[in-house]
C-alpha cells in the first residue's frame, strides 16, 4: 500500500512513465482525467483548471485569485483520490503538496534535453537554437509557478526521493527502478502516514471551499479539528470568524473549528473558537 508521485520536465515522458508504472504494479493512474471531477465538485470549468496548471503564475487581480482557487480544488480532489492508496499520480502538481507523507515515493523524471529540443523544434517549427531558448524559458516559468503557489522549487532534487535522467536510461528501465524502490517497506502506508494524508486532504478540502469568499486563508487539520487562519480588520474580525466557522462546520469530516483572525494592520492575533 503506497503511492508514487511523478513529476517531470516533459509532460509526455512523465505521463508515459506514470502510466507504465501503474500498469506494471497494478496501481491506479491518477492524471488529468481527474480534472472533470474537480470541475463538477467545485464549480470551476475544466478549461480553467487546465489553465491554472499550465499558465504562468498570476500575481494579482481576479486571474490570480482564480488560479489559486483552481489549484486548491485540484489539490483537494487529488488528495481525496490518493486516499484510496496504490496510486501513481502525474500531471496534477501533487509533488508540490503531497509533503510529509512517508509512504509517498516522489520521483522526478528528466527527459533527454536533445530529444526535448528536437521535439520542440518540430512542434513549433523553430530552429534548434531557438527551441533551446524556449525550453529554458519554460523551465524558468515552471520554477516561478511552483515557488509562487507552493513556495517550493520543483527543480530542487532534495524535494524528491529519486531523480532519473532519461538521457541514458530508457523508459522501461526507469519504470523498473521506480518499482524496485517503491517495494521497500519504508514506502508502505502506516497508521501515522495515512492520518497525515487524511489531515492534508481535509485541510485542502476546507481551503478549496473557503477560497471563493475568503481568498487569504491558511488551513490546517488534525484529526477532525480544523484550524483556519485569516486576516481581518479590527471591525470585521468577529463577523469574519463567524462566517468562516459557519461555512466550515458543514463540511464532511469536520468535528471542531478554530478560526484565528489576525489583525491586518497590527498583525495582532485574535482568536475565536
Amino acid at each position, binding site marked *: 500500500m503506497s503511492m508514487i508521485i511523478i513529476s517531470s520536465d516533459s509532460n509526455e515522458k512523465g505521463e508515459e512513465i506514470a502510466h507504465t508504472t501503474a500498469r506494471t504494479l497494478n496501481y491506479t493512474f491518477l492524471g488529468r482525467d481527474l480534472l472533470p471531477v474537480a470541475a463538477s465538485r467545485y464549480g470551476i470549468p475544466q478549461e480553467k483548471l487546465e489553465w491554472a496548471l499550465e499558465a504562468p503564475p498570476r500575481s494579482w487581480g481576479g486571474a490570480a485569485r482564480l488560479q489559486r482557487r483552481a489549484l486548491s480544488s485540484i489539490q483537494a480532489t487529488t488528495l481525496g483520490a490518493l486516499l484510496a492508496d496504490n496510486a501513481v499520480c502525474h500531471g496534477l502538481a501533487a509533488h508540490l503538496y503531497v509533503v510529509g507523507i512517508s509512504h509517498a*515515493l516522489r520521483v522526478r523524471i528528466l527527459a533527454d534535453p536533445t530529444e526535448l529540443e528536437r521535439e520542440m523544434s518540430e512542434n513549433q517549427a523553430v530552429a534548434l537554437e531557438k527551441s533551446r531558448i524556449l525550453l529554458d524559458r519554460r523551465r524558468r516559468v515552471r520554477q516561478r509557478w511552483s515557488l509562487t503557489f507552493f513556495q517550493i522549487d520543483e527543480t530542487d*532534487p532534495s524535494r*524528491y526521493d*529519486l531523480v532519473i535522467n532519461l538521457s541514458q536510461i530508457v523508459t522501461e528501465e526507469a519504470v523498473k527502478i521506480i518499482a524496485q*524502490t517503491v517495494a521497500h517497506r*519504508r514506502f508502505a502506508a502506516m497508521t501515522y502516514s495515512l492520518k497525515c494524508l487524511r489531515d492534508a486532504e481535509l485541510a485542502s478540502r476546507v481551503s478549496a471551499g473557503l477560497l471563493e469568499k475568503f481568498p487569504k486563508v491558511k488551513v490546517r487539520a488534525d484529526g477532525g479539528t480544523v484550524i483556519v487562519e485569516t486576516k481581518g480588520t479590527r471591525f470585521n474580525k468577529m463577523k469574519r470568524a463567524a462566517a468562516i466557522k459557519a461555512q466550515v462546520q458543514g463540511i464532511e469530516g469536520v468535528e471542531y473549528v478554530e478560526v484565528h483572525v489576525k489583525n491586518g494592520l497590527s498583525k495582532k492575533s485574535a482568536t475565536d473558537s
Partner: protein
Amino acid sequence: MAIITISRGSYSKGKEVAEEVASALGYECVSREVLLDASDRFNIPEMRLVRAIHDAPSILERLGREKQAYIAYIRCALARRARKDNVVYHGLAGHLLLKGIPHVLKVRIISDLEDRVKSEMERERMNEQEARSLILRDDEERRRWTRTLFGLDPWDSALYDLVLHIRKLTVADAAALICKAAKLKQFETTREARQKMDDLVVACEVKAAFVEEYTDVGVVCEFGNVLIYCKSGERIEHKLQEKAKKLTREISGVHHMEVHCGIPAPARAV
C-alpha cells in the same frame, strides 16, 4: 562493465554508498588514490592537488596557470584509473572530468542538511552551529568551484543519470539501485566506449604535457588522432608543433598530432 562516478556533498553518505556498490559489484573503489597517482606522476604535493580540486579559484588563481594545470593532472590520473574499468569513483567532479564517456554511470547522492549536521557533530565533536556553517561553507565552495571551472551548477540534476536522496532510501537501498543501473546495457563497456576512453586518456596525457606552459590549450582525440587547439595567435604555433612532434613519440596511442592556433577549442575538448 561500467565506470560509476558518485558525486556527493560532505557527510551525505556518498562514501558509504560508493563502498557498498564497489563491494557488491567487485569493483575498485577510488577517491584519494587518484590524487596520489597524480601527485606521484607529476611530482606535485598532494595537498596542493586537494586544494585545487576543492577550493574555488580566487580571482588571481583564475588568471594564473597553477590550478588549471593541477586539474589537468588529476583528470589524467582519473582517466588512467577509469580506463582499467570496473571502477567506482567517489570524489569531486568525476562526472565532469569523465564527460562524454558513454559507459559512465553518473550518480549524485544527497541527504538532508539536518542529518549531515548531525553526522558532522558526531564525527568532529563540534557544536551544531559550527557544524552547520562548515557544511554550508563547504557546499558553497564546491558550487563556486564547478561554476568557475565548468560553468555548471553541481546541484543541477541534469548532470547525473540518477540522483538518490538518502532519507527514506537507506545506504543499502541506494547501493542496490546503483548496482542494478550499472548492469544496464547502456553502461556496458562496448568497443566504441573503450575507444572513447582510450582517446580520453590520450587527450588528457597530451593536455597534461602542454598545460604548464600553455594553459589555454584544448585537446581532442579521435581514434588516436590528436587535435590541439590554442587560442593564442600563430606566433607560438611553431613551438607547439615542435612539442607535439616530440609527444607523438613519447605518448603511446598517438597516431597523428595537429596544431590549430587562433581557434577556440570545441566544447568536447579537454
